[in-house]
């Protein structure tokens, strides 16, 4: 699984980092992906983060 954050859309609210800190990190008010491809044990958390993102800035390639 690969995760992409659209930096132009992201508001840096930190929701993804809250849900899956192993994969997402907010730097300079934008979320960045720090583990790509996503380790298997964090895949579901990444889907939850995509679901929770208030601006739909996260996309996933399964």
């Amino acid at each position, binding site marked *: 699984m690969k995760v992409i954050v659209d930096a132009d859309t992201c*508001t*840096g*609210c*930190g*929701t993804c*980092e*809250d*849900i*899956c*800190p192993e994969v997402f990190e*907010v730097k300079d008010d934008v979320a960045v992906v720090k583990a790509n491809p996503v380790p298997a044990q964090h895949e579901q*958390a990444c889907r*939850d983060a995509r*679901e*929770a993102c*208030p601006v739909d800035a996260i996309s996933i390639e399964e």
Partner: protein
Amino acid sequence: MGITTKRGDGGWTDRLFGGRVRKDDPRIEACGALDELNAFLGLARASARGRTLKRLLLQIQRDLFIVGSEVVVSRRGAAKLEYRVDHERLRRIEEHLSAIESRLRQTECCFIIPGGSPTSALLDVCRCVARRAERRVATMHRRRMLFNPLVLAYLNRLSDLLFLLARSEEKRHMGFVAGP
């Protein structure tokens, strides 16, 4: 600073220690339920006659600010919280629970019809709102948005305590009214 900032006009709001989210975000829903609970607790406290009950309700109202901060804070911001929902806070609620439970008969703790007295009825409203807050926080927990699971335990105990406080208040005034 004025109350009106107009920053929330677009349906977004700020979380504690930063990060803007939608106003219908699960965390803001939970925070709103806690705010509503605090308001109803204030009404119950204003209606209560006993000094002990008033003091306990005020303590719960103060606790709810701490619960609220746990609910809206980010994972990173949680480290900055001065007060937390911890085992000690949970223990205090459990002590009140045990003390009241020991004074009530089993039949006085079953299904009831609220309304034995104005204060007991308000405490039942508080209990219902507390259960809603608990459900909202459970949603957060399921969606990995809750960093301190003791918050869920606290709200569960608090709902039980509010139920028993209502029964205790009813008993003091006119006796409880059994359900169907």
